[in-house]
């Protein structure tokens, strides 16, 4: 018990210190680095709180893909432009501290009252009772793709929409003008050769494992995105679709999900309601398509943030 207490204390301190540094350390680069540390500590916290699915997703998506996005942004502009300050130097920090303290007290008191406090209440037990009816044996996957599949559909739609908006910042909504690192690749060739097969294998394992244990399409998709980004940075230009295959790759997940919804309606089962005996297979197939699409979407988000080659960006003078 005491060892657990000490570990908790270390975790809480690590979270607070890394978050505080990420937010308040001077300098963009240091802030982004501390945020990456924060993400890794968070993954440990999720595991500590009995949420291995969330821990995997945090490590792969939040610390992995978000880290790549932030690092790429901060390398392009390590320093920010001149600041416009309002009022005297001490005013804004003081206001922030007062407002923050008030919010912590109010929200903290409210949060302590929230949620099912007694064991055996809430939706958790219901899900555990009904997981066997869903076609998969892992409760989180059952919630994501059977009981609340509508949420997951909208989540895929949000990701797709984000990619569509980012693409609209580029000429013709395509990414062929974004230069890929060629001979001057920042990633050693050997690392790419060694890491990518292992990452892809891991993604496949996470995808299949998601039916019966922690894992699933989103964690697998994030790993796949990592592999694609690594390949592109390693000089393999075609790894991330930028031309003809860009739109199909981004849209296939949402399209498959919607098609499944319409098929289930046409079969008279109701929107996204899957029935015996195919439901397990259908969920796995849908997850496989989602993995590819999520991987492509996240990799495209990374590529689309980069600067297009000179003279080809929209909005520049001819």
């Amino acid at each position, binding site marked *: 018990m005491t060892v657990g207490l000490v570990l908790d204390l270390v975790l809480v301190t690590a979270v607070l210190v890394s978050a505080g540094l990420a*937010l308040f350390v001077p300098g*963009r680069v240091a802030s982004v680095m501390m945020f990456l540390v924060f993400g890794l500590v968070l993954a440990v916290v999720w595991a500590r709180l009995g949420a291995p699915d*969330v821990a995997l997703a945090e490590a792969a998506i939040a610390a992995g893909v978000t880290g790549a996005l932030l690092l790429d942004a901060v390398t392009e502009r390590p320093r920010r432009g001149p*600041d416009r300050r309002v009022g005297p130097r001490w005013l804004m920090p003081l206001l922030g501290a007062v407002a923050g303290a008030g919010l912590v007290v109010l929200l903290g008191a409210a*949060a302590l009252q*929230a*949620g099912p406090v007694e064991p055996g209440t809430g939706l*958790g037990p219901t899900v555990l009772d009904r997981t066997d009816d869903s076609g998969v044996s892992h409760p989180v996957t059952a*919630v994501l793709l059977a009981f609340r599949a509508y949420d997951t559909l909208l989540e895929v739609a949000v990701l797709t929409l984000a990619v569509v908006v980012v693409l609209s910042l580029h000429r013709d909504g395509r990414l062929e003008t974004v230069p890929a690192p060629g001979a001057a690749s920042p990633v050693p060739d050997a690392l790419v050769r060694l890491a990518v097969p292992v990452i892809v294998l891991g993604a496949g394992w996470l995808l299949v494992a998601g039916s019966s244990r922690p894992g699933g399409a989103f964690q697998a998709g994030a790993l796949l995105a990592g592999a694609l980004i690594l390949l592109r940075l390693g000089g393999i230009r075609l790894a991330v679709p930028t031309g003809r295959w860009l739109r199909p790759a981004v849209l296939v997940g949402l399209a498959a999900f919607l098609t499944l919804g319409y098929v289930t309606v046409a079969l008279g089962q109701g929107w996204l309601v899957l029935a015996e005996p195919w439901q397990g297979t259908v969920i796995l197939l849908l997850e496989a398509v989602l993995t590819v699409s999520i991987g492509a979407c996240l990799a495209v988000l990374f590529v689309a*943030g980069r600067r297009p080659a000179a003279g080809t960006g929209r909005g520049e003078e001819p």
Partner: protein
Amino acid sequence: MTDGDVFLLLGVGLAVLGTVRLVLTGDHLRRVVALNVAGSGVLMVLVAVAYRSNPEEPDSVLHALVLTGIVITVSVTGLALAMVRRVERDEQDRQASHE
């Protein structure tokens, strides 16, 4: 106070810290970082509520919600960073053309 409560309050603290920094900093890129920290705080509240109700078998509905939240966060982050970089590039180009 149980261990679940400690992480619940930690989540609240993170959400508030991130929000305050989000409002008070003028640096676009650091706003994105602050938004991510605040979002993580909210997710921690959800995970802590799931853990508090039953530490042996936490509520999987809340875990699924948090997974959704993580994917939404990375979508928003990617979009925000692309816009921030575009805005700063334009500022830089404008400064360069003035000089």
